């Protein structure tokens, strides 16, 4: 089997240790998200301050990142989240992950805090700490440009902007103009360590175990993927494709989820007028990213919905400018697009006033929204309150009744614009997602596709109820989705080519297993890949429980239980508390946990044994 290197960087001591990635760790957790969780399980002190030097920040390539496999240019960046207080785990594409692999590394495990701003320069199997004083104060885009100018053409950076430097709890790490490790405030963790960027420059592709077979399989799989209508249309329009369809269905979070439909003026057709071209991440043939004519990339559907409809913004040019601003500042648009609407509703209801906000905070006030984003990044005025994200409640910066209007789970603002009150499986998925309110961990997207029972049974391996408004068997579809997405995150491949993500076709365990064998010479049959995925979910549960998570946290915002959807085909739907509680119990049992969501002592002991090598030898 071909193995790579893991670097242990202690920013306090200014030291770097480089070791071979342990083979048993790869067999148990592959790489990417799985291996990151193994290191967090082993190295993260319980109760650590997420903004303190003891937090462990891990940049982890997937097992196949940078290999000639389809859409294999992604990585996970993980730490304890300063936003949620539990697992922070953000997935990022672009070109940086593959460059880190070519520079000789599977992952970087970073601890401590530097005395001065630094960046890591990673190249040719070495990691150097270099002064970042010349770059401190630059936004995320200018930082990357300056670093490539100074380090050399072709260097790729994962960098923070002002938001990360000012330790805004939902600051993200940027590579390129739009690729973000967005969720959970990983940018704030970097800022707290005075780590401005990680720069990778590599020119040695990873050695391939069976190059001929892998290249042949890649050709065949790419051809297969491009037979999919979903892949074809994603490559033409990108995710803005989803916006108009959500509007028509009445499934769009609007004005802090008070409404569920908004103007069509932000849909794909309107965004297209401002798109220069479509581009892709490293190694991907889908090319679903769009370069906009206002100097940035995007917006994606998440930003369209949350910074658009959810804030009451109606004009597509305003939306693109807001999108570009968030990316330059290094702010997660999922959190910004939930927190700002939260504040707007609080202002609307008179729960907060101008003595706190510093001025009117009206729906759709674009100049006010842009100013607020700048103030959040600078931690200025009311921006300093929202910079604390949901922790503003615990810190006493907002009245306690504000919690009733917050759309967040486990203190993480909801990631996506889809209102989950109609599709019950989506609601369960948000509630149990291991990093908080998030659709990317486990959304059973097939539940809204109107698939026949025959096709569903082929996908899930057993009969399931197709009706999206039913609670029955939805634990099956969520668990299945959670497993396969965890597996693909361990590989460093993109969700958009994963079976279950918008299509029952696309790539699944059989393809993953074959790619792993041909790329690195490791035999992991499909059934074992499922076991790896379940192991990762168990580990995330154990880490979260160490940080205080209980069954009570696997819940939904009050609004989803109490307020029915007001308009459209989804009108009248909400989540029934009793049905949800029963569904949650069934999900736990499906996971092999007890009725409080606790893995058995035997499984916990097994995880501990498997993570023994997830630590520096020294």
């Amino acid at each position, binding site marked *: 089997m071909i193995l790579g290197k893991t670097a242990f960087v202690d920013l306090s001591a200014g030291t770097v240790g480089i070791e071979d990635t342990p083979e048993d760790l790869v067999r148990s957790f592959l790489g990417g998200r799985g291996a990151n969780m193994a290191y967090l399980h082993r190295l993260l002190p319980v109760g650590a301050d997420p903004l303190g030097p003891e937090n462990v920040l891990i940049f982890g390539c997937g097992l196949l990142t940078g290999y000639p496999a389809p859409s294999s240019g992604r990585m996970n960046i993980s730490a304890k989240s300063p936003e949620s207080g539990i697992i922070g785990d953000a997935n990022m594409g672009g070109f940086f992950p593959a460059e880190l692999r070519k520079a000789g590394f599977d992952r970087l495990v970073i601890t401590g805090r530097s005395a001065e701003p630094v960046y890591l320069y990673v190249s040719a199997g070495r990691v150097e700490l270099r002064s970042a004083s010349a770059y401190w104060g630059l936004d995320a885009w200018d930082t990357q440009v300056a670093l490539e100018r100074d380090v050399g053409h072709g260097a790729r950076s994962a960098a923070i902007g002002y938001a990360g430097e000012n330790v805004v709890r939902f600051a993200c790490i940027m590579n390129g103009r739009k690729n973000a490790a967005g969720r959970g405030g990983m940018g704030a963790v970097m800022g707290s360590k005075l780590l401005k960027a990680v720069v990778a420059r590599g020119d040695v592709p990873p050695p391939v175990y069976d190059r001929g077979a892998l290249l042949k399989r890649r050709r065949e799989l790419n051809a297969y993927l491009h037979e999919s209508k979903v892949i074809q*249309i994603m490559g033409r329009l990108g995710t803005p494709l989803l916006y108009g369809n959500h509007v028509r269905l009445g499934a769009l979070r609007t004005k802090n989820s008070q409404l569920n439909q908004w103007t069509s003026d932000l849909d794909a057709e309107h965004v297209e007028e401002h798109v220069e071209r479509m581009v892709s991440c490293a190694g991907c043939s889908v090319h679903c990213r769009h370069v906009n004519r206002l100097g940035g990339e995007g917006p994606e559907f998440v930003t369209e919905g949350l910074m658009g409809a959810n804030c009451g913004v109606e004009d597509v040019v305003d939306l693109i400018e807001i999108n570009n601003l968030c990316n330059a500042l290094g702010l997660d648009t999922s959190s910004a697009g939930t927190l700002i609407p939260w504040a707007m509703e609080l202002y609307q209801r008179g729960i907060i006033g101008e003595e706190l906000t510093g001025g009117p905070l009206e729906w759709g006030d674009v100049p006010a929204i842009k100013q607020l984003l700048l103030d959040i990044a600078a931690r200025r005025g009311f921006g300093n309150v929202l910079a604390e994200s949901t922790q503003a409640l615990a810190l006493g910066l907002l009245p306690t009744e504000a919690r009733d209007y917050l759309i967040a789970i486990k203190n993480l603002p909801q990631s996506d614009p889809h209102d989950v009150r109609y599709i019950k499986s989506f609601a369960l998925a948000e509630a149990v997602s291991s990093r908080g309110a998030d659709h990317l961990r486990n959304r059973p997207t097939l539940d809204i*596709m109107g698939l026949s029972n025959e096709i569903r049974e082929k996908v899930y391996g057993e009969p399931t109820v197709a009706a999206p408004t039913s609670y029955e068997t939805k634990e099956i579809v969520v668990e299945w989705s959670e497993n396969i997405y965890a597996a693909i995150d361990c590989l460093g491949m993109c969700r958009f080519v994963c079976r279950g993500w918008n299509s029952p*076709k696309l790539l699944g365990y059989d393809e993953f297993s074959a790619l792993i064998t041909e790329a690195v010479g490791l035999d992991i049959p499909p059934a074992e890949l499922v076991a790896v995925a379940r192991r990762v979910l168990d580990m995330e549960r154990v880490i979260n429980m160490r940080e205080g998570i209980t069954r009570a946290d696997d819940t939904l915002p009050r609004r989803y239980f109490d307020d029915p959807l007001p308009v459209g085909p989804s009108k009248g739907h909400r989540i029934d508390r009793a049905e949800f509680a029963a569904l949650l119990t069934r999900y736990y049992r499906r996971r092999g946990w007890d009725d409080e969501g606790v893995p058995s002592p035997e499984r916990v002991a097994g995880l501990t044994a498997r993570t023994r090598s997830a630590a520096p030898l020294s």
Partner: protein
Amino acid sequence: MGIRIGLGEPFWRAAGVREFVYVLESPEGIALHELCTRLAVPGVQVSPDLAEPPLFVLNDRILSSAESRAAVVRDGDRLLVQLMLAGG
């Protein structure tokens, strides 16, 4: 009066139009699968074998796969057809 048909993404692009009225020949209505055949918009069809089927919304009611196969569309009805993706 006819049937008001709305085409969402991506189907309106092949058809070149987002909304139009389909005039029925018969007052009894038309089976949805037959209507799709007549519209001849690529990808707009009713079949249990489709892995990436269109989603049909008839008079604000989202149809399941089985309901789509049995549905009859009548004069004055509103039909929306789109590819419903929820992951993005």
